[in-house]
């Protein structure tokens, strides 16, 4: 009994949100179309669950997120490491990352649509461009901050450059690389949904705008829940991978 009370106390704010929402829905101040109760959203959520419409769109969006993110990781990590190790390369690349970081790169999306077409290409490239910045910056600082004594101690035992890189330097930079990944992946989700909302003929973002045109808020909110679940699942997945790779911290 007391443990239930504890739970209620712990989650009082969430319960409050639910109660207020339900009261507003039941008050009749707004039409049911505009302000559905949570049970309505749940029903629509379950109705959508077996539809192929939902899953094909989720699949397309996932493909775009993962492709853009993977490209950013494949290019970004070596780039960040190269910048941290070569003074000249750092001098050349640093302005791009200093000036490009605060710029909303997604604004270039219309141009990418012109170049890559309205399909996945333009979306993947925009996701790539947004994801690569946090990955490069975190890799760079992580690589710079690898404890010099780790390197010295490796040299002391006669390790050559290659061994030092793969067995000391890279593991030392790994935690920061994953920090960059964890910042980049949610951005990838946002950009995927956003670009699909701006112009697309498929994807979960497209589904969202399509449904919102019908002014049926319960459907829109149900899709919002799906999108949130995608974001949540991807983050968990990344965390799982991280804990396999960076088990020591």
């Amino acid at each position, binding site marked *: 009994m007391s443990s239930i009370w504890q739970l209620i106390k712990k989650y009082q*704010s969430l319960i409050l949100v639910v109660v207020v929402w339900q009261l507003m829905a039941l008050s009749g101040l707004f039409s049911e179309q505009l302000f559905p109760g949570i049970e309505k959203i749940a029903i629509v959520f379950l109705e959508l669950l077996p539809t192929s419409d939902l899953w094909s769109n989720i699949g397309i969006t996932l493909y775009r997120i993962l492709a853009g993110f993977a490209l950013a990781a494949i290019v970004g990590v070596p780039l960040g490491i190269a910048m941290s190790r070569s003074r000249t390369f750092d001098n050349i690349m640093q302005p791009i990352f200093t000036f490009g970081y*605060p710029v909303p790169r997604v*604004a270039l999306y*219309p141009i990418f*649509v012109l170049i890559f077409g309205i399909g996945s290409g333009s979306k993947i490239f925009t996701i790539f461009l947004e994801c690569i910045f946090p990955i490069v910056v975190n890799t760079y600082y992580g690589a710079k901050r690898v404890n010099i004594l780790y390197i010295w101690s490796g040299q002391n035992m006669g390790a050559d450059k290659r061994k030092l890189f793969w067995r000391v330097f890279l593991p030392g930079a790994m935690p920061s690389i994953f920090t960059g990944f964890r910042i980049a992946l949610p951005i990838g*989700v946002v950009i995927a949904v956003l670009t699909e909302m*701006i112009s697309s003929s498929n994807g979960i973002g497209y589904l969202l705008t399509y449904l919102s045109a019908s002014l049926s808020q319960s459907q829109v909110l149900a899709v*919002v829940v799906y999108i949130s679940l995608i974001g949540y699942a991807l983050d968990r997945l990344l965390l799982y991978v991280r804990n396999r790779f960076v088990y020591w911290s």
Partner: protein
Amino acid sequence: MQNNSKKWFVLTSIGEILFFLLLWQVLSITSWFPTYVSSPVEIFSRIGEMFADGSIYPHVGISLYRTILGFLLVVLIGTVLGMLAGFFKPIGNFFDPLISFFNPIPKIALLPVFLVWFGVTDVTRILIIFTSAFFPCFIATLDGVRNINKLYLWSAENMGASKFKMLWRIILPAALPKIFDGWRVALALTFVMMFSSEMIGTSTGHGLGFMILNADSYGRVDIVLAGVFIIALLGFIFDRLLILLRNRVLWWSER
């Protein structure tokens, strides 16, 4: 030495930008680029024209108004709530589940929801800016306050400081480096959301996002790129202003 490397950095940056623009120009002239991508000369002359005839001002003005209003709301509400939640345990306990529940939601998905409720209005736009940028600001503040060295607080208590005084004189300065980090992330998100909210669901109106969308539908790539350039410039300038403020206020904090 320090000054030298800074000068160096500025010089290489300018050199790179010029080199890049020149390369772009040459590629356009030799038509290596697709013809629909305008050359830098075209884009900059378009920008010049838009400033000369004044047609750009309403767009910049309305976009800046939305951005600044949204950002100020985030800074005000996010920072104050974050500090209270960090300092007073019960408030913190109240917010914790809310944050861990709502933070992972990709806030952009809420834009259609707000559109249905509030229509294509500034309320929708500022609301989506707020919901996106609030969380990083709030979480950074909360984090900064919770991780303050306990000895600072003890020594203040020891000298008889009141709760309010501690919040204002000790917790705020000590957490400020973290808070600035949060503001910086929030600012970047504000710009992305300003642009997005102007691009989605708009048919008429003003704003840089709308200008880009509109020009895009007429195939005016030069205007699209001019708009992108102005948004990029604004994003950069505001970020620099924030860093300038940070260096002013946080002269004692290294970086």
